[in-house]
């Protein structure tokens, strides 16, 4: 997420914008379509970072919103905001896809084309491009859970508490792991290639 980007709107505002007016003595239902407009890109970035397959990530995003549509009445704002709820569904959908992929044995999709090619070598002369490629490589080398954490924080802009809620860990643990990832990336950026 680029600082100052439109997607960097604080989470609470996003959640509030997607919540329907509260109904007396009943759970407010969420506007899944509005969530789709607001969060599809972030969800895709998260899913693609986790599963590392654009087509699978697309499927994960679609599945996520289908499930959200089906279960929107079960959403309880007291247990978290709509965005965290949506990412929780996305995580489960991604895990379902990973399990299916594991059972399928063969990787049949196209490999992501984010590997540096000859053109990137040329571009590597550029300092920024070189640094970005280093960071991208460092991210790609991260364990899956750290990548997931990074996606939730950097790509989706979730608060540590929300991340902890999604991953089923404590906020302290989420912060600790996040700090470790940051440290790792920083070190990777300073290592001369």
């Amino acid at each position, binding site marked *: 997420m680029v600082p100052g980007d439109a997607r960097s709107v604080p989470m609470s505002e996003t959640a509030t914008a997607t919540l329907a007016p509260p109904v007396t003595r009943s759970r407010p239902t969420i506007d899944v379509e509005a969530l789709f407009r607001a969060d599809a890109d972030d969800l895709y970035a998260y899913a693609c970072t986790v599963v590392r397959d654009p087509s699978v990530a697309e499927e994960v995003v679609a599945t996520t919103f289908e499930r959200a549509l089906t279960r929107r009445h079960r959403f309880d704002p007291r247990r978290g905001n709509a965005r965290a709820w949506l990412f929780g569904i996305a995580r489960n959908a991604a895990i379902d896809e990973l399990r299916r992929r594991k059972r399928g044995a063969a990787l049949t999709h196209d490999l992501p084309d984010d590997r540096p090619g000859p053109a990137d070598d040329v571009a590597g002369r550029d300092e920024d491009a070189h640094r970005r490629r280093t960071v991208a490589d460092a991210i790609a080398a991260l364990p899956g859970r750290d990548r997931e954490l990074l996606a939730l924080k950097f790509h989706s802009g979730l608060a540590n508490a929300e991340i902890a809620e999604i991953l*089923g860990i404590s906020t*302290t643990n989420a912060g600790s792991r996040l700090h470790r990832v940051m440290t790792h990336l920083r070190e990777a950026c300073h290592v001369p290639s």
Partner: protein
Amino acid sequence: MFRREAPLHPDAVRDLDALDAVLGGDHDADPTLALLASDVDAARPRMDDAARERLETRMQAAILADRGVPAEESDAAAAGPRVDRTSGPDDGAGHDDAADHDAPGHDGPARGASDGPRSGVWMPRVASGGGGGRRPLRERLLGGGGAWRPALVTVALAAIAVPVAISVSDGGGSGATSDVAALSTGGDAPTSTPESFDAGGADDAGGATADAERPRSVDRTSADVAPEVGRGAGASAGASVVAPGPSPTTTTDAPPTLGGDRQVVRDVTQTVRVGSDEIGDATNRITRVVQDAGGYLGSSQVQERGDSPSARFEIVVPTDRLDETVGRLSRIGELVRLDRRSEDVTSRAASLEDQIADLRAERDALRRRLARTTNDDRREARRRELRLLTNRIAGLQAQQRSLRGRTQTSRIELAVVTGENETALPAPDDDAWGVDDALDDAGRVLEVLGGAAIVAGVVIVPLGGLLLVGWLVVRRRRRRIADELVDEA
């Protein structure tokens, strides 16, 4: 699972706060961190237009299906571009329900949305009104149409109400019914039927049924009995006490035949209250009553003076004079308590008779064999055998005599009290359901519910604990598996 975590290091907290500031748009927070965030964002996967279009189409189709648009229309909407991907066998069995359980903010399993065919035209798997989608079990039972909900509530209420009703009704006429069963089978089961006058009026339909089954020779009306009992309790009370039906023990002077050859052991426990200075007079009257009845005082203990003068008697009277004697003793003072017990010993007596007859026949046969025996040793052995048989017969005959004595005479345990601390005779039940009855019933219901709660607690708490532990273990395992899957990706 429950261990306490160490707090974050202050440096880590500072870095995380700086990261939040950078991601929140504060470029001056930490330039290097802002650069890192920018670089990470550059590596962010971005959705291409084609993928976005496909997602839009699927989303629209799903929304249409959710709104109940006919399948043809939603299919048409869904027939748009879809990513053509084959992703291994899709048997729909690989869904991790717990994974969805772990999802924050919602509580349902993740089935359904990805269970359908994954090649060809995408079909929205959103559960529509027709219920075409595969729905979680809990949703199918409790949610959706909701037809199950009242049924489940009804079943749950019935599961609670039936044991309560049975337990409450146990205090009614079931005891009398068991008496009937015991009598009808002619068994020796003790048919102790305490007939204290406080229970006499409450001896409801069940009791009446039992009385109808009991053999008796004379049916007396309440008017016949009322003058004999309850003088101290008042005439009206006495009348209502015996009104529900003739008691098997309310007989006339004629000896009870007890329906043929029935042999019944009958005992009475009786308490009479007299004035504190009337113990001596009462004792004399009791002695006269007993003598008139042809009985005797088995034991007596009289305390005429002191703080609380009292007397206790163990009276033995012929059974056929029992009721008359009880009636006369009740008139000595205020009747406080009257319990009657009876036990049908007919079959026991018949059994003794049969055993004696058998042993006698055996003894006769043995005597004949003895007469034919010439060998001295064998004669001696048969004599010993004969003596044993004779002893056994004598023992059985003693039992028979004892039993006959118990059936021909009855014991009355009579207590004469003067103090006010003796339990007063409860007001006879007027068969009208009042506040006291309501309180009694409420107390009984609470008692039964409390018992049921204790039993349920004994069963449910350990079971719940085990289920909780199992659930935690399963959840932890599934989380670990999910983390491993993510790590392996």
